[in-house]
Each structure stands twice: as C-alpha cells, then as structure tokens.
C-alpha cells in the first residue's frame, strides 16, 4: 500500500509571491512557457516534498531507474530492463548505455548505488526515506548492472523507484542540485529567477535521437488565479497544466485558441473528522453531517462544476471503484433526526481548519453554510501549510474537522494506520486491509477494495466530497502533454507544437 504524500497536489494551489513576465513565446514554435501555481523551494527532488520540485524536474532534468507514465504505470527509465527473483527479494537492473549527466560525467551503476545510499543514509533529508527502507544491500557487479536486495518483499518497489524522490544523482553534483540541478534528462537547467521563473534548455546529448522536440521550456510561477488567467489570455503563457482560476475556465472554453482539459488526479478531497474528539466519535453525528452535505453544491460552488463527487475514499477512474455517493443523500430531515438520536438535537459548535488551496477554502465556506442548516455551527479557521502540518497532521491532532485532498493513489490504508491524524479505527476494516495485503489476484483485490469503500462510506469515516480535478488550459496546437496527474510531473520530453 502506498504511503500518503498529502502535500503533493494539495500544495499546488497555495499562495506564494510571484509575478509574471511577458516574453512572448507563442510565435517561436520550439519554446514553451508553462505556468505553475507554486514556486519550488529548490530543485532537488531527493530533498523535499514540494510537488513543485517534481513539476519542474520530473523526467525533464532528473530520471530514475524506472519512470511513471501518464497512466500511472511503470516504464523503463535509466534501467532498460530488470528481473525480479521469484521470492521478490532481488531486483537486477540492466542500465542503459551511453548515458551522461549534464556536466559530462558518465552515468553508471556506481551512481545508482551512490544515489540510493544517500537517500537511505543517516544524513538523508529525503522526504520519502521510507521508499528505501526495504533495501538491504546494493551491489554493482559491473558498470551496467545493479543488484538490489530487499529484506522483505515490496510490491511497490519499482513504482517508488520511478518517483522523483528516487532520482539518480551523481556524487560530483549531488550537493549542488538544489540550485543547479544536474541530471540525465532531456533538458538541462538553464537559469532560475527566484519568485519568477525557471528555464530549462534542451540537452543536445540526450540519448534518444530527435528528443526533446522543444529547445527551451520556461516554468513561470503565478499563484494568483486572476493573474493566471491574465497570463494565459495575453499569451505570456502557452499552458497552465493545473489552472487555479477554475471560475474563469468558461471564458476560455469557447475560444478556439485554447484547449481546456479536465483530467483526473489521485486526490480524494475529504472533510476529515477527528475521531478521537466527541462528537465525531459518534457515527450518528458523522452520518448526520454526511446527510447535511450536498456534494453537487460543493462541486458547483467551490470547483465551478469540475470534479466528480465521491462517496468513499477511492478514485472514480480506478478499477474497483464503487459509486457510493447515494449512501447518505442530502437530506436535512434525516440529518436532524440523527442529531436528535445522538443527543445533540440543536446541533453544536465546532471548527474546520482550512489549508490554503482554494479548493479547501472555498469548499469550507459552502460546507459551513450547509452544516448551519442543521444547526451545526462550524467556525472556519484558515491555516498555512506549516500550521496545518503541525496542528492537524502531527502534534496532538489539534482539530475538529479539516478539508484536504489526499493525493496518493490507492491510499485506503490510511484509515487503518493507528497514529494517523484522523484517528479512525474499525475492526472489520482492519480485517479487510489485512486480507488485501495477502491478496494478489486483481479481481479479488478489486472485490476487497469495494468492501473497504463500503465500510468507509457506511461508517461516514470522513465527509467524502469530490475527486480533485486537474483542470489544465493550453494553447491549441500543443501536443504531448499529460492530461492526468498520477504523480506530480510535467514531462516535456515529447511535447511539441503541431502548427
């Protein structure tokens, strides 16, 4: 089961200082200017959780042994092939030949060993050090072979080694990657104007002939939705893969100059309860809240119609999904009756902590109004990510409710973690999770996923709201960009202009 990297997409829309510059790239067809909502703090994907780092560098600058494609499946990366021993403990990777780092040094098995040892070592500042926890030894019998032995089977090892956190970095340049990233990818780091942009230029020595198509890619950081719209409309930007100004998409949709793409993410957006605090330990109260929430109104009001309502903690585009949105339909009378049963006929006062992204702040406003209809008075407390991490996620779970998108794929196991921030526990759920661990057959797994979804829905373990959409806008004539976001990335390798 994957672990949760809550911040990945969730942080995309948080506020930070940016501006936008106006070099017009539209006429030159081998350059592209791309907008991002958040600026990365630095450019080393092996030393930070910020999604923005991967959104700039993933596959463009840095590569791993494997890579994740748009559909979320594992593809060969710097390893052209691999073998897994029958016991699932030994991975033998065959590396590509003739790969060099951007500074001219050669890539070989020693770099892989260095990168993985660095990520799992005592001084590691890798945000996903857990990915490497199962590694026992790394051997390099020859420059093109890496043998990784695990101490226990890890079904997600190949997927995890395709994440930005497992990028292969060279001992010569690793320390400076934050400011001057040196990888093996199709683009080299050009320059960084803090607060404004990062420019990548094509790597002429890239191993695949003819790639990349683009000569230069500029990433511009624009947090404000209104400014994002301006930049796209004025032609300052050619694309905004995760467009924050959802409310203005209608203005672009009718315009033949633009394509509007509504893709999927792995982000289940939920109203999370603190189960260790009354009255949220009472299933009747949680069900009452579920009845009080009108998801369609939330999607229409907060997301301007984008985003699919969900009835449990599972992405609708995945196999094994069960539509449970009808479990507790909007019904104020039923909600009030449940509150009466629970002994709080007049409702109660509570709080909702809201992290910065607009999806959270806007949903919060609508949900507070919906809860007020059944007498629940929810005070909205906006928090920055730093506070959210400290107050809600760690340290004492100081919250009643919070709204956040959980963006890791297939993260049903978070409801089974004993120390997880919402403190949910269900015996039957634990059994299903245990069984899931033991099950390999895809059909049987999907059946178990269905059971798990039903338990969560019936138990109203969270207020399930909607699947976070990835609404992107781009100019007509751009080809090869990802519509969906299985991992945070803007893989520009095969992107080109068609006209």
């Amino acid at each position, binding site marked *: 089961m994957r*672990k*949760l*990297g*809550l*911040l*990945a997409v969730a942080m995309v829309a*948080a*506020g*930070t*200082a*940016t*501006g*936008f*510059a*106006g*070099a017009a790239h539209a006429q030159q067809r081998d350059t592209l200017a791309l907008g991002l909502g958040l600026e990365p*703090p*630095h450019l080393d994907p092996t*030393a*930070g*959780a*910020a999604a923005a780092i991967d959104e700039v560098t993933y596959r463009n600058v840095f590569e791993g042994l494997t890579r994740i494609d748009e559909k979320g499946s594992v593809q060969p990366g710097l390893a052209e092939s691999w073998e897994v021993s029958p016991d699932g403990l030994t991975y033998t990777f065959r590396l590509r030949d003739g790969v060099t780092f951007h500074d001219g040094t050669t890539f070989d098995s020693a770099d892989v060993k260095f990168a993985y040892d660095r990520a799992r070592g*005592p*001084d*590691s*500042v*890798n*945000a*996903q*050090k*857990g990915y490497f926890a199962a590694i026992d030894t790394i051997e390099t019998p020859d420059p093109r072979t890496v043998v990784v032995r695990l101490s226990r089977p890890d079904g997600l090892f190949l997927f995890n080694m395709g994440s930005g956190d497992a990028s292969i970095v060279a001992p010569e340049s690793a320390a400076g990657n*934050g*400011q001057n990233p040196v990888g093996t990818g199709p683009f080299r780091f050009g320059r960084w*104007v*803090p*607060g*404004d942009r990062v420019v990548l230029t094509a790597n002429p020595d890239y191993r695949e002939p003819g790639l990349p198509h683009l000569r230069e890619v500029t990433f511009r950081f*624009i947090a*404000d939705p*209104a*400014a994002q719209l*301006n*930049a796209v409309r*004025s032609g*300052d930007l050619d694309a905004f893969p995760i467009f924050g100004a959802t409310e203005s998409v209608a203005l672009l949709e009718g315009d033949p100059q633009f394509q509007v793409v509504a893709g999927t993410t792995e982000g289940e957006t939920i109203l999370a309860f603190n189960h260790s605090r009354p009255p949220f330990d009472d299933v009747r109260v949680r069900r009452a809240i579920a009845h009080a929430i009108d998801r369609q109104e939330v999607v229409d009001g907060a997301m301007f119609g984008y985003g699919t309502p969900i009835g449990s903690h599972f992405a609708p585009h995945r196999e094994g999904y069960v539509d449970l949105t009808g479990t507790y339909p909007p019904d104020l009378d039923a909600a009030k009756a449940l509150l009466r049963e629970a002994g709080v006929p007049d409702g109660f006062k509570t709080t909702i902590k809201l992290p*910065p992204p607009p999806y959270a702040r806007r949903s919060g406003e609508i949900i507070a109004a919906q809860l007020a209809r059944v007498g629940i008075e929810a005070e909205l407390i906006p928090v*920055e*990510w*730093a*506070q959210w*991490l*400290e*107050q809600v*996620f*760690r340290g004492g779970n100081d919250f009643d409710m919070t709204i956040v998108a959980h963006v890791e794929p297939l993260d049903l196991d978070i409801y089974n973690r004993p120390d997880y921030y919402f403190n949910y526990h269900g015996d039957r759920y634990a059994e299903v999770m245990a069984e899931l661990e033991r099950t390999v057959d895809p059909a049987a797994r999907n059946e178990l996923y269905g059971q798990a979804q039903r338990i969560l829905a019936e138990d109203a373990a969270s207020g399930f709201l909607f699947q976070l959409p990835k609404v992107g806008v781009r100019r007509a004539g751009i080809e090869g960009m990802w519509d969906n976001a299985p991992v945070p990335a803007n893989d520009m390798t095969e992107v080109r202009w068609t006209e």
Partner: protein
Amino acid sequence: MLSFLARRLVAAAATLAAATVVVFVVLEVMPGDPALLMLGTEARPDTLAALREQMGLDRPAPVRYLAWVSGLLTGDLGRSMTYGVPVAELVADRLAITVPLAGLAILASTALALPLGLYAASRRGRPGDFGVMAFSQLGVAVPNFWLGILLVLVFSIGLGWLPAGGFPGWQAGIGPALAALVLPAVSLALTEAAILARVARSAVLETLGEDYVRTARAKGLSNRAVLWGHVLRNALIPIVTLVGLQFAFLMAGTVVIENVFYLPGLGRLLFQAITQRDLIVVKDVTILLAAMVVLVSFAVDLLYAVIDPRPKAGS
C-alpha cells in the same frame, strides 16, 4: 546640538537593537517547523533531524541570535532556508521592483500635491481651497488597494491600455517594465498626495505668516518672488520630512498593492517567506525595513537640528 544628536543616535541604535530582539523572539515562538514543511507528511524523525541540523535550527536560541546579529553587523544576511541562495541576492532582486515603485509613487504624489498645496494656500478660504481640501479628504479615505482594483477595471479590463498585473522584468526593456508599474504607482500615490497636499498647504500658510515674509512683501517683492524665493524654501522642511517618512513606509506599505498587481516586490517576498517559514528571510527583511524607518527618522532629526538649532522638546 551635538549632544542632542548623540542622544538621538543612541536612541536610534537602542531602538534597532530592541527590534532585533523582538523579531527574533516573535519568530522563535511562531508556530510552524520549516523542516517539516520542506519534507512533508511522510518525513521520518531522523530525516527531520538531519534537515534541521542542515538548516542550523539545532543550535540553542541565544547562539543563533548572536550569529544572526553579528552577521547583520558585518553585512552578511545569511542564506534563505528555502531557496538556499544568499538573502542579499533575493532582497536585491525584489528591491529592483519595490524601490522604483515607491519612487514613482512618491514622484507622482509630490508632483500632484505640491502645486495643489500651494494653490490651496494662495486661495485660502475660497472655492479653490475648498476643492483641494475636499480632494484631500477623499484621497485619504479611498483605500489604495481599492483604487488599484478600480484602475485595473478601467484601464486594463475596460480599455486594455495597461497590464492588469505582473512584472516582465527589467530585461524586457524599460517600456514594458514601467508600464507594469504605472497603475500600482498611481494607486499608491493618491493617498500620499492627499496627505502631502494638506501638509504643504498648512506649511505654506504658516510660513506666509512669518515676519520675514511680511518684510519681503513690504520691500515690494512680487507675490510670485516671495512665494518661490522665501515661502517655498522654508515650507519645504516639513514637506521633505513627510516625503522621507512616506518613502520609508512605502517600502513595506507596497505589500498590499504588490498583492493587487502581483508584483514580486519586497513585501511579497516577506509574505511568502512567512508562509514558507523561511525564518532567515523574514528576520532580515523585517529588520531592514525597521532600520530604514529608524534611519529616516534620524535623518529628519538631523535635518531639523541643522536647520533649526533649537533642541526639540519631546521630539
């Protein structure tokens, strides 16, 4: 006079020293762990500890305070915890927007306010004076960020003459860069002009009442000569004082306007640094802004002491 200046200098230094303590303590107790923010929800305790050590957060508070202050004194502002680049570089980049913006605003405000103030003073009690005073009342009442929004509505969305926001960078050329600063500068200028026009008017009126002005008039000098030769020169003291203070306050005060127009200036850097818990940047920028206010106030005192050697009671 020297002892007065020495006392003011000591007071200014003491204020700054106290300011460093206040800022440090505030940031010390501010909730939010920069390392946790950087590494996110899956961070393990040992990785967090490693990063805190890398960021220098593991040292005791007094040590960090002394290291910071001694760095300030030697001109070393340290490195940004999020960007990893020297803070001085970051600040210089942002000042390249904020200083011209504040400068343009002051220029526009002075160009508008001085003639208005003089005109009002020369028409004391008549409709012209009334009109200027009414403008001044309105100018003070209109919040600058609302004015900015209205200007965008008219000149960007309506007429399409000027950009609605953003900054193309000075490398894009003087024209586009200045065009991006016009609306923000005008938004800032109105309030300042309203205050300045009022001060200019009363400064001129006060000077007009002084003996030497009456003497000059009695000597037969023309109204215009009196106004430009004597009155304005003396009335300039309070005006220059105010303009200096306005500039110092605008350095921080531009933040709201920088938000309206999405300009990556100093205020937004501070805003962003607070959000990202980039404590070093927050500390440095705060102290720089405070130092500027203190220095300008000191310069004003100096100016007064030079022009008018009588010590000021109660400053």
